[in-house]
């Protein structure tokens, strides 16, 4: 699944216009606890979260994640977007809840990866 497809499935707004949306995403992780995210390594993953602070980007960066989805309409601030841009991480926001967003991506074939 590509980042563009995620935008479409989640009816999301892309907040990092320069991101390469043709990149493939192979796994997904949905959590507001960054330590739980750090416990499970996945390749080319997307992180779905309702947490809205710079540590979300830092966590995604450490995990080599390629995309962050803020659920429930969360709007990250400029600092978060600058951090993500500098690391080539695509950031988007969707009005959907975590459960619905994860469910729709799962329905379309995305899985949780190892762990």
């Amino acid at each position, binding site marked *: 699944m590509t980042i563009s497809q995620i935008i479409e499935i989640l009816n999301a707004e892309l907040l990092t216009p320069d991101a390469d949306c043709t990149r493939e995403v192979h796994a997904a992780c949905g959590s*507001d*606890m*960054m*330590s*739980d995210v*750090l*416990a499970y*390594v996945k390749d080319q993953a997307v992180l779905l*979260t309702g*947490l809205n*602070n*710079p*540590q*979300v980007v*830092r*966590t995604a*960066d*450490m*995990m*080599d994640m390629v995309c962050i989805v803020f659920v429930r309409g969360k709007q990250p601030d400029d*600092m978060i977007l600058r951090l993500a841009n500098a690391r080539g991480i695509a950031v988007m926001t969707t009005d959907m809840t975590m459960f619905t967003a994860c469910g729709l991506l799962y329905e379309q074939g995305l899985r949780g990866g190892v762990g």
Partner: protein
Amino acid sequence: MADDAIRLHYTVPGDDFTRAGEASADLKSRLKKLGLPPTAIRKVSIALYEGEINLAIHAHGGDIDVEITDDEVRMTLSDDGPGIPDISLAMSEGWSTAPDEVRSLGFGAGMGLPNMKKYSDEFDIQSAVGVGTTVKMAVRTT
């Protein structure tokens, strides 16, 4: 200690949680430039990032010393914070003394030390209440 080792030092501030992770991000970038294996870089990054978060949350900041040799990355995290009364308890997954404020930031789930051990090939922690804590981690790169 190898003579041709690369040595780095970072200071982690204890009063600005938003900056926790800067050292890990810098080290990750340097290791990439050195061409180390991606798996090893990820292990180092996650282990050090959790350590940085711990320094910021629990110890009011601290110091990180890194030594990069031909076959490993060795990290020493030291602080003069409150110390850990029961290390075996602190190493249990899910056990945490982090306040609600920290939990609201996405940490304090009791996974920090377990994750640091999980991603390290060598892990050692020494702590004394009222004195501080020293964590030593090494990740093999060959």
